């Protein structure tokens, strides 16, 4: 492979070839001669691959869940649910496979095509940024998203969200979330409601034994309609935690997301500060709302009641909050870069997500919007954190006493005492 690379060096399609070449092999470039350089093995591609590894269990789970939700909606939910018998079945897997894989293929195909075109035109190497985005996108869209919508959204997200800023590492907003937001605002009637979350619901596949078309509402959708009874009867807490619920393709299983999150923390790819502070933020906002309900300040016919009385810790295990916190908020490019900034940034993500969930009847899922919003403000947070540091050090410098030079040759350097 390395020889092939040398052979084609400088040709027009060289970037496209190199992209495949370095996908699995470490490039054979070494650092420049002269001087000592330390070169880490974990280049950008390795980083991206780590995140994808963390996403694969979720993708596999989503196959089963897509099938399970589809058959359950047709035949009714099984009485005595057992994982082996009802969930991990070949039927479920196969149905999920043929519905989810096209999403993955379209996302990668279209996205990488755009990346390749840009790389060839601009004559630089293909940037790896799309590897993770392309995996995230199919996981955050509803199962029945039409493929052409996804393709349009991916083109928008990659071009406007990333390439106009100069490519990977320069973007302001997370491209995957830009794609999701584009889908949401461009096709609002398709992307919300109770039809799109279960495969087949949109085409009017009918329920066994009745003429009704199947439908699958997400838990947040039920709650936004003040329909707590339906949630209680249909989904237990362990269902929510392990993810046997309708929702976007990959967001349902908090358990697997947790494992993926721990993996990312231990491999030091993602920032634990953002994750922890986002969880804290969500819990705080949830507690405030629960407090409002307990204090009786809000009547139970109010539109917000259903979501407000929802136990604060349950917010973490339904909807896309966990997925967003672990895989999207921690994006090192669009998030805050300073340590203190990360705490603030994460906290507001959790806080605003739950706030949008409760207060915005139009968007029962506010996580992606909250992260986008904080992406917008991340540079501001960073700016002020850095300013603050500069100010503190200036103050320290002002108070510092610079001792006169010692006449002894030993202590030549200045001694600075800080107060």
């Amino acid at each position: 492979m390395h020889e092939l690379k040398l052979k084609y060096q400088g040709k027009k399609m060289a970037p496209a070839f190199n992209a495949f070449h370095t996908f699995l092999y470490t490039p054979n470039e070494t650092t420049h001669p002269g001087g000592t350089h330390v070169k880490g093995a974990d280049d950008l591609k390795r980083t991206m691959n780590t995140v994808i590894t963390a996403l694969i269990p979720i993708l596999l789970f989503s196959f089963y869940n897509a099938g399970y939700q589809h058959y359950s909606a047709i035949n009714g939910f099984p009485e005595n649910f057992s994982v082996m018998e009802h969930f991990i079945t070949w039927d479920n897997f196969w149905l999920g496979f043929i519905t989810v894989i096209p999403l993955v293929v379209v996302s990668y195909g279209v996205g990488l095509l755009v990346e390749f075109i840009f790389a060839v035109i601009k004559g630089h190497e293909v940037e790896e940024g799309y590897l993770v985005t392309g995996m995230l996108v199919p996981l955050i869209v509803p199962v029945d998203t039409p493929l052409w919508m996804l393709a349009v959204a991916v083109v928008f997200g990659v071009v406007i969200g990333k390439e106009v800023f100069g490519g990977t590492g320069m973007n302001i907003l997370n491209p995957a979330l830009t794609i999701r937001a584009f889908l949401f605002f461009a096709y609002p009637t398709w992307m919300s409601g109770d039809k799109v979350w279960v495969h087949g619901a949109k085409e009017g596949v009918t329920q066994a034994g009745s003429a009704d078309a199947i439908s699958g509402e997400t838990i947040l959708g039920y709650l936004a309609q003040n329909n707590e009874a339906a949630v209680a009867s249909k989904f237990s807490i362990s269902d929510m935690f392990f993810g046997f619920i309708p929702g976007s393709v990959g967001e349902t299983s908090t358990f697997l997301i947790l494992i993926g999150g721990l993996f990312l923390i231990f491999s030091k790819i993602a920032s634990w500060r953002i994750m922890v502070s986002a969880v804290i933020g969500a819990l705080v906002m949830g507690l405030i709302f629960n407090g409002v309900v307990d204090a009786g300040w809000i009547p139970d016919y109010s539109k917000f009641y259903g979501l407000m009385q929802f136990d604060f810790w349950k917010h973490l295990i339904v909807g896309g909050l966990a997925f967003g916190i672990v895989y999207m908020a921690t994006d090192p490019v669009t998030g805050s870069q300073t340590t203190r900034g990360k705490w603030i940034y994460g906290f507001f993500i959790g806080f605003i997500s739950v706030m949008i969930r409760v207060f915005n009847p139009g968007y029962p899922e506010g996580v992606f919007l909250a992260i986008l919003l904080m992406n917008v403000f991340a540079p501001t947070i960073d700016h002020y954190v850095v300013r603050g540091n500069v100010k503190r050090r200036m103050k320290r410098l002002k108070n510092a006493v610079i001792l006169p030079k010692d006449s002894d040759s030993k202590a030549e350097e200045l001694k600075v005492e800080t107060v």
Partner: protein
Amino acid sequence: MLEHIELFFKSIFIDNMVFAVFLGMCSYLAVSKKVATAVGLGAAVIFVLAVTVPLNWLLDQYLLRDGALAWLGPEYADYNLSFLSFILFIATIATMVQLVEIVVEKFSPALYNSLGIFLPLIAVNCAILGGSLFMQARDIPTLGLALNYGISSGIGWFLAILAIAAIREKIRYSNVPAPLRGLGITFIITGLMGIGFQSFGGMLTGDNDPPEGTETTTAEKTEEKELIEKEMEEDGKSVSYNDIIKE
């Protein structure tokens, strides 16, 4: 009290001057290259809005609206001078800005110097006139609420220009394609920020009516804005608008 809080958050986030109604764009785009200057201009906008909106509220209540002249006597009760509101509002704003400038220069030269050219610039910032006109159109009932509205929509504008200034400082090192440098990329960023601010669109829409219709229209509006912006940016390319206002 509750209505004050609601109006406050509503005008900062939901009806944000920049991202919801796209007002005050000229100074927003022109003076957002550095955070420090953006903060100066933002502060000046907050101040001027806080002064002019209540003043114009008084004008509107006691001079302009239908039957406002009743306090002069019953024979004036059926006058409606609201066609004069544009002229009077802009006159108030210009006067106030001049007055503020003189006072600030006299009593606080340091602040005057830091605000610099921005203070007179604000007289022609459409967000200021927009604030007064929205105040009139939305029938804000009391002077206190008008003051609140002025301050909070100023804060909304301030946040917007602060955020974009920080982003523009950040992307200074980005490898933006040459035709988009400068205003082009700023328009795109503004559109993307608008998507971020959409998270508040339709929030707190009351308890009685389902916001289904409004929901879709706002969503469509964003799309339109996006489209318009894309077109604008393409137009910008063809007439090389970037060359006119270069960084």
